[in-house]
């Protein structure tokens, strides 16, 4: 790493908050890219020493092993509640973020997430949505697409039996405690840059004390789809982007209070 006052400036390389470690992820997996983006954002915001990450259970949690920042591991789905405890424990002075997958966040932990925003917590959540359960071997997730084959929907997800994909970024945008909600992807360089901007904004909202920041990042899981990385990306662009529109669903600088009782 270059010295601060060196005339030579580092223009690319490994972020300081990312360890030099072998990726534990499968080839073609995009989770590692998201982990890297979070690390770059932490570096750029200069919060590496004052940030605590909360990892859940699932492939997304692999970032926990490679990010060079303090981490607390939560049980499946409980990251926003554990994050609440960490944030309060550190007198709301640390920057606390959660990384969660679609089983962790959208299934078992959706209540924890929504209620953290209902309580007005100021946290940042990065949601890794890959339309299925990777760690346990490719089962149905709440985010699985209609018709998508998984090991627990061998004939494809049918609404009558398996229900509908959940759109978490839009759901979050409707909650008054949330001040930023976006859905991004990392399949192209342009999307990579948008994702980074979104994650940075979501962190900034917390740092500025405004409210809850949420970013959903779509990605493809080749083993889940039983496809090569290239084929999985094609599938992703054709189907996942059709189901889940990208974009910012909320970006406000104040939490809205619609009605307040004046006690006399």
């Amino acid at each position, binding site marked *: 790493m270059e010295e601060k006052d060196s005339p030579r400036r580092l223009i690319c390389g490994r972020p300081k908050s990312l360890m030099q470690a072998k990726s534990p992820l499968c080839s073609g997996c995009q989770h590692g890219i998201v982990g890297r983006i979070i690390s770059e954002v932490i570096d750029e915001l200069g919060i590496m020493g004052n940030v605590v990450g909360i990892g859940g259970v699932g492939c997304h949690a692999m970032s926990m092993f490679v990010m060079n920042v303090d*981490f607390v591991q939560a049980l499946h789905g409980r990251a926003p509640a554990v994050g*609440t405890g960490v944030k309060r*424990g550190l007198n709301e002075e640390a920057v606390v973020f959660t990384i969660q997958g679609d089983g962790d966040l959208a299934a078992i932990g959706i209540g924890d997430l929504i209620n953290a925003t209902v309580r007005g917590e100021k946290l940042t959540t990065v949601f890794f949505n890959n339309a299925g359960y990777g760690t346990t071997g490719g089962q149905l997730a709440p985010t699985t697409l209609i018709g998508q084959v998984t090991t627990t929907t061998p004939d494809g997800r049918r609404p009558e039996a398996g229900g509908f994909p959940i759109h978490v970024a839009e759901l979050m945008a409707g909650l008054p405690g949330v001040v930023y909600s976006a859905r991004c992807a990392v399949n192209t360089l342009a999307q990579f840059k948008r994702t980074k901007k979104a994650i940075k904004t979501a962190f900034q909202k917390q740092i500025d004390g405004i409210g809850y920041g949420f970013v959903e990042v779509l990605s493809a899981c080749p083993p889940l789809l039983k496809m090569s990385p290239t084929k999985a990306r094609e599938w992703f662009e054709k189907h996942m982007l059709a189901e889940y529109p990208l974009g910012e669903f909320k970006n406000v600088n104040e939490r809205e209070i619609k009605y307040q009782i004046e006690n006399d």
Partner: protein
Amino acid sequence: MVEKILISGNEAIGYGAIYADCTHYFGYPITPQNELIEFMAREFPRLGRTFVQAESEFASISMVCGAAATGVRAMTSTASTAFSLMQEGISGIASMELPCLIVNVQRGGPGAGSTQHSQMDYLIATRGAHGGYKNIVLAPFSVQEAFELTQLAFYLADKYRIHVILLSDGIMGQMYESVELKKLEFPPLPEKDWAVKGSAAHNYVRTFVHNSPGIIGSYYDYMKRSDEKYTKIKENEVRYETYEIEDAEIILVSYGSTARVSLRAMYLARDEGIRVGLFRPITLWPFPREAINKIADNTKKFLVVEDCMGQMIEDVELAVVGKARIGLVGSMDRNLPTGSGMILSRKVLEKIKAFN
């Protein structure tokens, strides 16, 4: 002069937490512990401490986990039904070796059971959830003791880096007694250098508190450390009280509110010339097994009084290893076969007389 006030057992735990410098409380309403969460909501913010009402007991135990991971003194309180909900979180806390306090003001079970008192959570409190961990369990039998054991709980938690369960019950929680508010003094504690505070606090060496001892790091180290910790606690922290056991023919074994009933029954029996004693475990884990075993050399009859269908009786059986006969005064001996019925002293006396 020491302040003396009239408070309930539930409030006494709140005062104990304040006197123990607990700074973070997370909870969810459930009968019969509501006076405690309400006390915390009232008093903690006033003292500049943190009170959060969670959306569930899954969440409140997770918040305790997060706060404890930062090194602050954190606690939650609940009652039986929701104590079950917390089990996964408690097992997680055990794997992370986080010091904290979990209060269970027992109500009737199973399921939603009743909203009234019981002592039906002895086994789940002392045996715990999946994963074979241990935790210290303290059982107060007066409002004063609830206040003091809460302070002790935080000390023991920090001393051993372990979670402590304070096992109260509906009667203990609702009972009013005068309490001397006095801060207990304890020896100095080890520094919490394992706590997560942002890596700047540790010279930019990152801290990682995780709940997967069998995946991350060395499982062997975790088990060895835990084994040593449990052994040390068993050697040093067993607490109990005895009454009139020297010449006793029958010894009552009882904890919490039924120990109060048993104490009265003991005196009633003594008035009638029956030589009865009382053994009251204060730590339910570690259970005073050796002490009971020793007493069983002289006394051949033990009557366990607990408001359930027989749970602590298993520990007493393990303690006497066949040296004495053991009987039970349990929930079937309540004065009324309802949720609000309770074991009365005269029923215990009756059972003493019948135990021959």
